[in-house]
Each structure stands twice: as C-alpha cells, then as structure tokens.
C-alpha cells in the first residue's frame, strides 16, 4: 500500500542463482525461528531489494503525507487543534526520518532515495495524491487514513528486519496519538453544527475511494508472495488488512450516524467478511503512475524544498568525514 505493493516483476533467475543455497537455508531457518535479521547479516538479494523498496516507499509516504495536512496548520481552528496538528505533522516528518534511516542500513543512501522520489521512480502511498480541501478532510485523514496506516504498521512490526521493526514500534506508539486526535476532531464535527456535520459527510464521500484503495488491489498468492511471506517481508495479504480495517473502523463511522458512499458495504453475518463494491483499480493505477489530482503539486513542493535547501546542505559539508553505513 505504500506504492502499489511489491515488485511484481517476474523472478530473475540470475538473481536467484546468486544466493548461496546453504546461506539461504540458514537465513530462512533464522526467520522461521522468529529471529530478526540485522543490517550486516547475509541476506538474499531479493530480500534486500524488496525491503529497501518497501521501507523507502513507506518513508516517502510519511513526508509526502505531511503535506496535505500541513497546509491546514496555519488554518487550524483554535489552540487545541493547532497544537495537535503541528505535533502530528511533525511526527510524520520524524517517521520519515526514522524510515529512511532503516532503509539506509540496507545500503541505499537517503540522497538516492530522494532522487528516486523526485524523479517519480519511487512511489508513495496513493492516498496522498488527493487534496485536503476542507478542515474536515484533515480530520478524515487523521482518523481513517492513520487508522489504515496503523493496521499496516502493526502487522509489519512483526516482520523480520530488525531496524524496520524498531522504527515501526516507535511509529506505532506515535500513531496512536495521531489516530486519537484525528478521531476526536472528526467526532467534534459529526456532533457539531449542521454545517460541521455536512462538512464531515462530504469529506467521507470524497475520501472513501482513496481510502478503499489504500491497501492495494487483491493479491493472489503467487510463488513470489509466498516467498515474501516466508521471509516475513509481507505478513498479511492486502485483502486481510483491508478486512481488518473495515471491521474496526466502518462501525466507528456508522455510530456517528454518517454514511459511506457504498450501498454494498456490509458485514456478511455468516462469513464475517465485509462485502463492498470493488474499488476502481484503473483509477488507482492512473493516480499512482502520476495522473492524480495532486501528484505534480506534491513533487513540486519536494523539489522546491530540495532546491531551496541545497545551499544549506552544501554549506555544512565536512570534507574530512567519510560516510559509513549506520547501525540504526
């Protein structure tokens, strides 16, 4: 969900051949025992590659995710909301920082990751390619999107890569505050004046499709998927995570007397599975490949930050220091 799933490229036979079978077996046994892989451990080429991609895109999602809500910091209504939003958005930059650091331990530098973001090569969570138009959108993001992110993060925190798990533990702790303040602000609207209630409903109507896109399309269990599961890189299917999200949070919307724009959304009493109108995945792919309402703007802001900040970073270069891989 941080960029449309994992690399679905057909397995490259030569990459597989590079993995020493004895080392691979030991690696997999370690993971099966529940042990974590640490930065300087041997790891299969594909493991490293998939993890870098996943963590990197998660990191990009955090810093891009800060932008739609960030635009409302200056407009937050009152001290309580202003301080909460400032703290939350700042946390997101902090999460980005921690995640870039975790990805960095795998050998890709922060600069390389930024370059791939700016060039469009690396993706970030699609949901942030949509605009926050009203204050209600800020609350919807803080409530439902952070909720979806938490579902994903809690699951991933049981993964196999040490630095990513450690970063996620910290992130999950902070996300709990994000969700609480988001839900609180959303409920304020739902229980407020008719105008506020309308704002909240309108926000849900506009954001429901991107939210349903959050966990990505249904992923059939391929050999590829199966291996990622065995390596505890992928820990649950997109469908499972989506079900978990719907199960916890749809009732929380309905209890406020608000609706979601899907007449087919309901929990099947027998199967206990949530049924819904299949989201439009063509839209999803169109947006994630650059053609969404805010893609250009999001990247333009990051490019601006990069260009304007270049002199600062260059001024602080200490030529005596040589970069080494961090421990994180």
């Amino acid at each position: 969900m941080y960029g449309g799933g994992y690399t679905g490229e057909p397995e490259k036979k030569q990459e597989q051949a590079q993995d020493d079978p004895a080392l691979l077996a030991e690696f997999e046994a370690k993971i099966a025992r529940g042990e974590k892989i640490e930065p300087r451990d041997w790891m299969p080429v594909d493991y490293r590659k998939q993890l870098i991609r996943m963590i990197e895109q998660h990191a990009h999602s955090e810093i891009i995710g800060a932008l739609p809500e960030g635009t409302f910091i200056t407009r937050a209504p009152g001290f309580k909301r202003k301080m909460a939003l400032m703290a939350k958005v700042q946390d997101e930059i902090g999460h980005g920082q921690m995640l870039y650091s975790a990805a960095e331990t795998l050998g890709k530098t922060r600069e390389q990751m930024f370059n791939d973001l700016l060039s469009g090569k690396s993706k970030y969570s699609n949901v942030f390619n949509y605009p926050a138009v009203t204050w209600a959108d800020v609350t919807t993001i803080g409530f439902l999107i952070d909720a979806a992110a938490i579902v994903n993060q809690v699951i991933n925190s049981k993964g196999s890569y040490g630095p990513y798990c450690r970063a996620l533990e910290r992130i999950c702790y902070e996300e709990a505050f994000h969700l609480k303040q988001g839900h609180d602000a959303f409920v304020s609207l739902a229980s407020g004046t008719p105008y506020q209630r309308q704002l909240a409903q309108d926000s849900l109507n506009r954001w429901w499709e991107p939210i349903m896109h959050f966990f990505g399309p249904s992923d059939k269990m391929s050999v590829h998927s199966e291996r990622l599961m065995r390596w505890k890189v992928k820990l649950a299917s997109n469908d499972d995570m989506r079900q978990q999200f719907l199960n916890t949070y749809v009732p929380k919307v309905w209890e406020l007397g608000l609706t979601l724009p899907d007449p087919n959304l309901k929990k099947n009493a027998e199967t206990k599975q949530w049924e819904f109108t299949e989201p439009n995945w063509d839209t999803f792919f169109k947006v994630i490949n650059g053609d969404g309402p805010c893609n250009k703007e999001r990247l333009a802001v990051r490019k601006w930050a990069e260009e304007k900040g270049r002199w600062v970073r260059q001024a602080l270069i200490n030529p005596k220091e040589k970069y080494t891989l961090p421990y994180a």
Partner: protein
Amino acid sequence: MSNPEQYTAIKELLYKMADDELIIGHRNSEWTGIGPVLEEDIAFGSMAQDKVGHACNFYKLLHEMGEADPDTIAFQRDEKDFKCCHLVELPIGEFNFSLVRHFLFDHAEYLRFEMLSNSSFEPLANLAKKYKGEIKYHIFHANTWIKQLMNGSEESKARIQSSFNELLPVSFSIFEPGPYEDILIAENIFGGEKALESRWFETISAIANDNGIKLMDVSDKTAGYGGRKGFHTEYLKPMLLEMTEVLRSDPAAEW
C-alpha cells in the same frame, strides 16, 4: 497585586509577549514539510510548537486576569488589536531569513524571560522559570546553526550576512516601549524594554563578532515601531485571515 494600574501594565506586557510568540510560532510552522534537512524540519517545527504553547499559556494567564479565553483572544481579535512587533509578521522567506529572525527573536525572548523570572508578579515569574530550559534549547539551536553557516561556504556566509543586514533594523521593533514602562520597572514586574534591548544587543554583538558577522549601524531604531500600538505590516492581516479561516466558516461551532 490588586492595583488596577499594575494590572493594566501587566496585561499590556502579556498581550505583546503572547502575540509575538503566536505569530512567530505560526510563521515558523510554515516550514513544516519543506525544511532544508529532515532533521531540521523536525527541529524547526518543534520549536514552533513551543512558541505557540508559550502564547497559549500567556493567553491563559490573561484569561485568569479577566480577559477572554485563549481561543477568543488569539483567533477573534481584529488586526489592530494585535500587539505583535513587525519582526515576527514578516513572511518566512528563504531559510537564512527565517533562521536569522529565529536567532534575533529568540535571544530577546531568552533574556526577557530571564529578567521576568525575578518578577514581583508571581504567575509571570513562574511561567518564565518554567520555560527557561525550552528557550535555552532554542538559542542553542540558533547559535549552532549560525556558527555552522558562517563556517560553511561562501554562499552561506553571504546569505547569513545579508539576512542580518535585512533584519537587524526591524528587530528593534521588539523593544518598542509600552505606555506602562515606568510602572513595570518601579513595581519590579519587568526591567523594561530599554534594559532588555541593551542586554540583547550586547549578546548578539558578541556572537556576531565571534562568527565574523558585521552588524550594521542602525540610525533609526524606531523605523519598525508601530506593532505594539496596533499598526502592523501589510503581512499581518492576510495571515490572520488565513489563521481564522476555518473558525470564521462557522462562528457558532466548536471545533
């Protein structure tokens, strides 16, 4: 402290302090997501929160003294009723501009709080003491950055020097004397803007000197005055409009 004259003097002081903190906090928060370095983005945003937090607590103290509640004071006053100085109203500009403003303002804040920690008005003294550590970090941050950039590249040195040239004159607007200076000083509530200005200038001159920054001679220190009396730069009104946009969309609502 039951003397109404003293109360008026203290409130005037609190309003301008709170307004300064709110406005500069708001300005600095505009850097969120676009800072030059991730870690600095986090630091700048955190300090902005601190400032807004200070403002909120000063407004709370005002409320205890009979003024409206903080949200009302902060988000529902007219531009002419704000008492912030011109320095804090200016748009964020490039990073060197915001950084030098942060340096200039925060040193004044630190020294003001230091002076207030001995205030005969206990609630104010307590707040000043409470925030001492927080502001210590703010000036540590500012000093470290100034030192780094003045030891950096030709470009960073030029930019910092240029921002000092641009900001020094208007930073004197912090010290525009209020109508109750005499009472504040006589009652040991606060040592006064003049004393603060002189301590501030001594401090920043020393740091500037250590780092090779030239402080130009400012012939007219009053050029930036007016903010304390409600006469603001062209930048404050649009900022207040933005700040109150959501609140004004439904004044009856609780958010």
